[in-house]
């Protein structure tokens, strides 16, 4: 009998295809919204963690927002906090063999791909101590002189540049006006990197000196868009820089065999300076995730509201159908269908509508999330991947599957009460 009741419910749905399809689509949209929120939140967080794990335990930069420092330096999102003299970092970690410092100077771009002024240490970055270097060459070599450029995999695709090609950089870390082009300097591409799944795939690498010289030649040093602190007044910024003359936007610090306590003390010491700050990427990204989660909670609330509305849609749809189908129900009663069978048929219809909606919504949610993830990865090179998160998704999918039949109870009760004689002979 159960199979027959299910088949009757299916036939009822088929007899009003458009209404059933629309109801299922409304459920699907609500479910899809919930899936997208859950899956993307997870995907972005995992992507950010994956993208950031190679870039040091500490990020040094000018005083300002620690989160902005981490996000702009590791994820290449947002603008750098500002500029600070390279010597300011050196004071803390330069002479300590336990630390490797990777300088980062961002100021220019080529076709929207940011040009990162750094040194050979950048190519020694690795996800863990025993892992191979993160950045490996797909072709050519790394830079050995100023104005030699190494392209990240995405940057090579985006700019169309190949080894041996030459280009002029433009001012700013994103694509700008034609008038921003530094025509006085020319970079030559000497290498292309393999894809790493980090935002640096869309960057171009050169020596820090290339960046500085570009602006010296263009007499633009003072026109850098970031307001540098007054270095002369800084007690931890000697008038004569130790390493080289020039400014950086940040530096990654890679500690080797440094106890965590020492690292915290170092960060406190640095943070006591009025001009330099040390940020732990993990802590800053954790705070960022909290912010994302807050946004996710709001979206989740919206999705729940949509789900409740979908439940009401099922109720209204089935209620209207039951009202219109009372004679059919009376006919079934006259043929021997019990009230329980009639009740079960309507509840089954609600279950089927919800089940279709949930399956469609879960699929749609993953497809949309994958699309959005692809777009985020495309624009930021943060490897946002979409996966099925059983622990979060299954309970979330189970709830509408329970809500649907609940919504079907009122129409089912209406069907249950149908008076066979009254509706068989109603004109």
């Amino acid at each position: 009998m159960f199979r027959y009741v299910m088949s009757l419910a299916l036939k009822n749905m088929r007899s009003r295809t458009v209404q059933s399809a629309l109801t299922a689509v409304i459920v699907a949209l609500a479910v899809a919204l919930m899936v997208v929120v859950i899956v993307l939140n997870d995907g972005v967080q995992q992507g950010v963690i994956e993208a950031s794990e190679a870039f040091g335990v500490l990020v040094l930069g000018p005083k300002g927002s620690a989160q902005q420092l981490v996000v702009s330096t590791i994820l290449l999102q947002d603008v750098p906090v500002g500029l600070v003299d390279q010597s300011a970092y050196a004071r803390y970690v330069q002479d300590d063999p336990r630390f490797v410092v990777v300088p980062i100077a961002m100021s220019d771009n080529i076709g929207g791909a940011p040009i990162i002024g750094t040194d050979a240490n950048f190519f020694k970055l690795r996800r863990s101590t025993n892992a191979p270097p993160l950045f490996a060459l797909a072709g050519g070599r790394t830079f050995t002189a100023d104005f030699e450029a190494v392209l990240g995999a995405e940057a090579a695709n985006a700019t169309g540049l190949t080894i041996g090609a030459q280009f002029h950089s433009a001012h700013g870390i994103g694509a700008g006006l034609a008038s921003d082009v530094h025509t006085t300097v020319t970079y030559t591409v000497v290498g292309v990197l393999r894809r790493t799944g980090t935002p640096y795939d869309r960057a171009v690498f050169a020596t820090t000196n290339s960046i500085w010289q570009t602006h010296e030649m263009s007499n633009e040093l003072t026109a850098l868009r970031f307001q540098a602190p007054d270095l002369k007044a800084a007690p931890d910024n000697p008038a004569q820089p130790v390493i080289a003359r020039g400014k950086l936007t940040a530096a990654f610090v890679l500690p080797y065999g440094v106890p965590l306590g020492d690292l915290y003390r170092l960060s406190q010491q640095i943070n006591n300076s009025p001009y330099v700050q040390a940020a732990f990427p993990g802590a800053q990204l954790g705070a960022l995730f909290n912010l994302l989660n807050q946004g996710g909670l709001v979206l989740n609330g919206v999705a729940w509201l949509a789900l409740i509305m979908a439940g009401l849609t099922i109720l209204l749809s089935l209620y209207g159908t039951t009202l219109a189908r009372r004679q059919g129900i009376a006919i079934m009663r006259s043929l021997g269908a019990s009230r329980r069978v009639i009740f079960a048929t309507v509840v089954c219809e609600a279950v089927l509508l919800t089940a279709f909606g949930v399956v469609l919504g879960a699929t749609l949610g993953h497809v949309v999330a994958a699309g959005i993830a692809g777009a985020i990865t495309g624009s930021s090179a943060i490897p946002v991947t979409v996966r099925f998160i059983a622990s979060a998704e299954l309970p979330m999918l189970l709830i509408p599957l329970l809500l649907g039949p609940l919504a079907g109870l009122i129409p089912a009760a209406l069907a249950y009460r149908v008076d066979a004689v009254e509706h068989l002979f109603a004109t």
Partner: protein
Amino acid sequence: MTLRLRDLRHIYREPGLPPREVLNIPAWSAEPGETILLRGKSGSGKTTLLNLISGLLTPTEGAVEIAGVDMARLPEAKRDRFRARHVGYVFQLHHLLPLTALENVEMPLAFLGENARERRAKALQALEAVGLSEWVRNKPAQLSTGQRLRVAIARALVIAPPVLLADEPTAALDGEMGMQVVELLERVCAQQRAILIVASHDPALINRFQRVVNLEAGQLQERVPA
């Protein structure tokens, strides 16, 4: 299986109106294989009587017994099942569901719990018996009035009921077609030794039935066919 009516009274009570007694039948019975024409003016209570016999209505007083079972005394679920097994009902408006002819005819068997294969075989057989083998996949909207009536008859007969009720089966058909339908009902009921009760105004049917019963002022009056 004998059909018996005992001290049967049925009164309609509607708000704001005085109670109206539509049936008062002290005793009446029919035996297997009998064909009975139920006549009466419009509003005389013919359909109400059929509904009482089918168990769709429960009488205000008295009993409708099929094979000694008073349907009114059965709990509703058992009464539904009893009706599904014992009474076939061909409605005046056919009352087919918007399913195929085959699915319509299968339905009463499904409510009796028969499996899909048995249902299909019996439904196909019933449709063949009414001459609709070629139309099993058609929905009511794709059938003529006569074909729809035949589907309704097949649906009523598929359970091989001991009692077959038909309410004005010839009303929407021309004379020849009406006669064919009545012949069909008679033939199948004779094969199944079912009691056939046809409610009809049609004077052409009077001489075709073994018994003719007039319903007048709520009472059944038997008359011997000429």
